[in-house]
């Protein structure tokens, strides 16, 4: 039992990176109707920018994360303003092509700027140490990640449910023309939503910098998991992304513990079951 509790907690910490990634993906899809294949690349850029500020330039870790979010926000702004905006009216296939193109561009850019070799900065010393959970040492950093993930979930929920901006976003998501007619500036709003989603992905990447591999290609590797999560939870549904991330993260952890031989297959199995029972996802409307 203790083993299961501990493994679940480890899985939960892994889930939080996935949640930060899936949140932006699902928000952008829900509001803009764009399935952004390159969303994982924004996660990667978040990690690379943090590596640059913190690992190379020696900027304070927190400041480095903040700067990294701003940097990715700028990238996201350009992506939306000058590229995606022109294809909203087109078929999903075009969006897929364009955003897949962005994966290649970002990966190659990362290779040009940071080199192909994995970047591994020193661990910030204040994160060292463990806390005892069911008698076993649990990393303080993972606890911090869980806390951050939950905090982001609350903030995002408040933002969409309780603020004027959130109401405008929801209104535009359900009826673009009506929202426009009552004076919502749709193009600006969409840019804002896209940038917000990009920053969530960047936060996930940034937080992983000291403990996870940063290399060209992680974006494409991560986006598959994010898609699985949104399929399980329901595309465009924020609650679904949160629950889906926790399902994928913790079940992989339990899979590794209990069924090491077919752990990889487990997640796909769950996705298949969800698709069969509830094709629109657990929380899909």
């Amino acid at each position, binding site marked *: 039992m203790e083993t299961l509790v501990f493994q679940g907690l480890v899985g939960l910490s892994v889930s939080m990176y996935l949640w930060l990634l899936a949140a932006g993906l699902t928000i952008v899809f829900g509001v803009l109707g764009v399935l952004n294949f390159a969303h994982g690349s924004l996660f990667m850029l978040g990690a690379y920018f943090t590596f640059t500020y913190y690992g190379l330039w020696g900027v304070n870790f927190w400041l480095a994360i903040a700067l990294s979010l701003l940097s990715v926000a700028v990238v996201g702004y350009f992506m939306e303003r000058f590229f995606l905006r022109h294809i909203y009216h087109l078929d999903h296939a075009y969006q897929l092509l364009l955003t897949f193109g962005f994966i290649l561009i970002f990966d*190659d850019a990362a290779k*040009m700027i940071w080199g*192909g070799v994995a970047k591994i900065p020193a661990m910030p010393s204040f994160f060292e140490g463990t806390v005892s959970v069911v008698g076993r040492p649990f990393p303080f950093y993972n606890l911090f990640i869980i806390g951050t993930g939950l905090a982001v979930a609350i903030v995002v929920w408040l933002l969409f449910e309780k603020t004027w901006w959130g109401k405008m976003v929801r209104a535009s998501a359900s009826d673009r023309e009506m929202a426009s007619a009552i004076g919502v500036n749709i193009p600006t709003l969409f840019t804002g939503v896209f940038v917000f989603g990009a920053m969530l992905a960047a936060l996930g990447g940034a937080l992983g910098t000291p403990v996870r591999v940063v290399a060209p290609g992680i974006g494409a590797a991560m986006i598959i998991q994010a898609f699985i999560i949104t399929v399980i939870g329901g595309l465009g549904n924020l609650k679904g992304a949160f629950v889906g991330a926790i399902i994928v993260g913790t079940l992989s952890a339990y899979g590794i513990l209990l069924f090491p031989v077919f752990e*990889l297959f487990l997640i796909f199995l769950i996705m298949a079951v969800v698709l069969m029972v509830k094709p629109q996802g657990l929380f899909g409307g």
Partner: protein
Amino acid sequence: MSGSKKISRRELLKAATVAGIGGMTLGLSKVGEAASPKEKPPAQTKSTKKILGVDVIKLGGQGVISGAHADYGWQIQAGAVLAIDEINAKGGILGSKLELKFMDEELKPAVAVKNARYLATDWGAHLLFGVDSSGSAMAVGPILPELDRICMFDHASTHRLTEELVYGKGIKQIFRIAAPVYQESNLAALIFKDFPNIKRWAGIHCDYEYGYSVWALFKDTLKKYRPDVEFVSIAWAPFWTMDFSSHISAVMAAKPDGIIATPWAGEGVMLLRQALMLGVFDNIQAWFQCMGASVDILEGISNEVAAGKFKDKLWATARYIHNYPDTPENNKFVASFRKRWNRFPNYSAENAYSTIYVFKAALEKCRSLKTSDLIKAMEGLKIMTPAGERFFRPEDHQAIYNVPGGRVVKDPNYPIPVLGDLKVFPAQAYYRNPPFEPLAMAK
């Protein structure tokens, strides 16, 4: 997507990589320049004076030069370029200069096969070498007879390459200069048989060919010496595992005394860092990081080793370590490599460097570029290399030489951690020998 389109995209990526790396550091850009001489049209002027009949001997190499494992491809290029420049500076081989083209195998067997075909057929490589991933090696090996080229494998380490493809199926075009998985599996078993208190072993292994063979051989050999040991837990991690926490906590739940782990390069560094975060080194007696003595891992865990965080419980080996053997050949190689690239050579670099010198020795011996002549010249070849004397066993074309295992320690003579407390065993003690007993290998 058509085949030609695919290649042109890869060419683009390659050019981008080279340019990008070039932008990063001066040293790396040298690899780039030497590695992409394709822009210059190869010298075609016919010269009848050359013994080998060509002005330029073309060497087609490949390795992984992008992603978490990219340092290996870099090291292969760096080692090969160093040897090629040394040889060209002295007039080449029998009057012919050497030219290198290096491609990214991306750890994908299909890409490696396509590269090999391109290098041999379109680009006209006379000799092939490289390949990092075992899966890629097992895919490239069988097409070599058709390409009529030798490939010197200088990293991919599955025992099946030489045992099954060369010894079993007789694909004579395959040679391997690097120590195969015997190095980290059987040697580890020999080292740890002498630790009577380590009875419960767990594994965290790569979820592909490499991890399967190491775990199978390690268990098999250790069990022969120590019937009392138990293998209590195993976790498998595929390529692109970014977070090993779940794997580590899963095997720690079985309370092992020792852990043997295969994830390599950047993934190996992250695995060790995450193990430290999970307090693993307070609760085990030994951790054997198979290729942990590779330079990129030693650099990556340098701070942690200096701070004593591994509590002297971290062990490792490699397919060559720069502080062994203490011979003039090795000292010269390490000094030239450091001078040229401002880094220590890892085993891929030494293996690639020696590959070029093995080609030189074989070409000088048979004075021919014909694959069948070269095979004869290389079978049974003995050659002094930085890693020591290598002997190419004729039965399986595997180079025999020994590399020690040891504890990862800080040494005041080196800027990065090194292996200390070296456990040296002769290669014969831990290499498998023909006829190879079949090995049950499963995930």
